[in-house]
């Protein structure tokens, strides 16, 4: 085979390269730049070396936010994935119920994140909020502004309300791709409901579930808007997750150096975890 080699094709990818350079690489380099310098304003910078990184990694505030964030991600995954599977399994597969269910499921996903936050912020208030008022009215002492546990519950319920639909829709897509013959064969083979789930439905959903878990993990690990609107990271620091902490540092205190160092560490963590997921997924494929 005689292939003509030339490098003209690079021009085709050039627009993307330029775009990515300006939207991702250049800002990232700016952050790298800040992370090794110190400033007291007036655009005067002094070399700081690895000082900010050392400070960050030894600060309990950072690790606490990290642990909170990991616990949060773990809890919402533990709720949203099984719940999403359960709902998807019980959604109708044909008839008029299908579009109705799909629209209902899509609704929370269509709402802007800050609006979701506002909805729950008002919903949970115990003076005018439907939820907060009636919870207190029936004798449950609920106040997300003062009680860290209530704040956590509110944010978790909000996230479950907002994002379970995504898991449902992905799982549903996996489920409807299973041909009828599989269910018929299972009947012929005398399989129980559990066996049908374990050996037919779950394997068919495995790919989409991995994607759902990956998406939900990354999103929840970067969560900012909703808890910021609802609790603002409080009470105290109890719902201060990594990104909230980061914004407090960068904008609230205008500590650009530490904030930049934090961004990089945060970025590396997400990169590492995404790489782990990616490897797991591709290994899984190779096994097939």
């Amino acid at each position, binding site marked *: 085979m005689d292939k003509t080699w030339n490098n003209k094709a690079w021009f085709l990818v050039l627009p993307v390269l330029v775009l990515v350079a300006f939207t991702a690489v250049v800002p990232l380099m700016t952050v790298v730049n800040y992370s090794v310098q110190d400033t007291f304003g007036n655009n005067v910078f002094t070399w700081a070396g690895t000082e900010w990184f050392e400070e960050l990694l030894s600060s309990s505030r950072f690790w606490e936010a990290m642990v909170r964030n990991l616990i949060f991600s773990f809890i919402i995954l533990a709720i949203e994935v099984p719940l999403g599977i359960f709902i998807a399994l019980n959604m109708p597969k044909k008839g008029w119920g299908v579009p109705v269910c799909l629209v209902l499921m899509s609704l929370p996903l269509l709402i802007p994140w800050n609006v979701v936050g506002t909805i729950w912020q008002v919903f949970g208030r115990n003076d005018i909020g439907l939820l907060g008022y009636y919870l207190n009215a029936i004798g449950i002492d609920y106040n997300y502004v003062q009680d860290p546990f209530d704040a956590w519950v509110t944010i978790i319920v909000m996230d479950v309300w907002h994002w379970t639909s995504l898991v449902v829709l992905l799982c549903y897509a996996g489920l409807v791709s299973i*041909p009828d*013959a*599989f269910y*018929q*064969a299972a*009947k*012929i*083979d*005398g*399989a*129980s409901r559990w*066996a049908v789930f374990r*050996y*037919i439905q779950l*394997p068919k959903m495995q790919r989409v579930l991995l994607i759902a878990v990956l998406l939900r993990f990354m999103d929840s690990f970067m969560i900012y808007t909703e808890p910021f609107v609802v609790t603002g990271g409080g009470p105290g620091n109890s719902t201060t997750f990594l990104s909230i902490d980061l914004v407090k540092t960068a904008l609230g205190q205008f500590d650009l150096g530490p904030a930049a160092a934090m961004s990089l560490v945060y970025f590396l963590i997400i990169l590492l975890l995404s790489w782990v997921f990616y490897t797991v997924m591709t290994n899984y494929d190779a096994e*097939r």
Partner: protein
Amino acid sequence: MARIDVNHVRHSYLPNPQKDADFALREVHHTFEDGGAYALLGPSGCGKTTLLNIISGLLHPSHGQLLFNGRDVTNLSTQERNIAQVFQFPVIYDTMTVYDNLAFPLRNRGVPEADVDRKVRETLEMIDLASWARKKARGLTADQKQKISLGRGLVRSDVNAILFDEPLTVIDPHMKWVLRSQLKQLHRRFGYTMVYVTHDQTEALTFADQVVVMYDGGIVQIGTPAELFERPRHTFVGYFIGSPGMNVMPVAIDGRTATLGSQRIELPGAPKADSGAIELGIRPEYVRLGRDGMAVSISKVEDVGRHKVVRAKLEGRDIAAVIGEDETVPAEPKVRFDPAGINIYADSWRVEMGA
């Protein structure tokens, strides 16, 4: 194993069927004998899969009754009927090993593990996958997967019947031959009652002792491959079986003579048909091409390998004849009909010819 009586079964997918046309299965009344190998043959949409699913219990018929060895099973579930069924596309549990796939139907029924092991090993030998037992099923080729599907049907020795729904569609042609002959062997060895749905006449004719030809939601003929070929009860069977299908032409009958345009054809007997549209059917294999008989004009000669198919016009109608590979078409071609191959149809149904 069981004898299966299908008693006046009708089925419609509509909630309130009124007309005949609403029924996917118009009326089937037939007995599948214990240990018989049957093929349900017919074009797509003729109701053969519907009938199969009614037998296995995946569908419950709108009307009629189903008996296994005389016991009414019409309202029993698939599990209770104890039927094995193999589908058109391979169904495998791809997270399990080949071994576990075969063990699955047995374990679901609580068979002791020692018996499971014995049966699975036997079945693995049967379908020739013994060396694959510990492999994950998902890496297999389409025909290996279909063999597993077959194996899951064969592993339960106590099933009432094994049903096949076009099981060889996805298989390569040479593997089709292999699998089909394996099925035949299994049938001979173990005497399962087998019902095999297909739209491929070769498959039906080679597999079955009795072929059930279905057309438009009903059974048009049940017979041995030879009967279907020699004495098609309905013109549809004539068209559908054979390649090319039977020549059917409208004729007028007078005693032992049929008149086709200006031609007169001697019949082997006097058909007892006095009403309806009368047609004469003759298979291309019984049309003799030569120098005497009725004049035809040749439109095409197709060489299909073992023989040639001659397409011609007789009295303005298309007619096909089969001639030997070495025979040639004469300059002024004429055809004769071999009386042994002549069938007479009134309103598409075959009528007997008296002496």
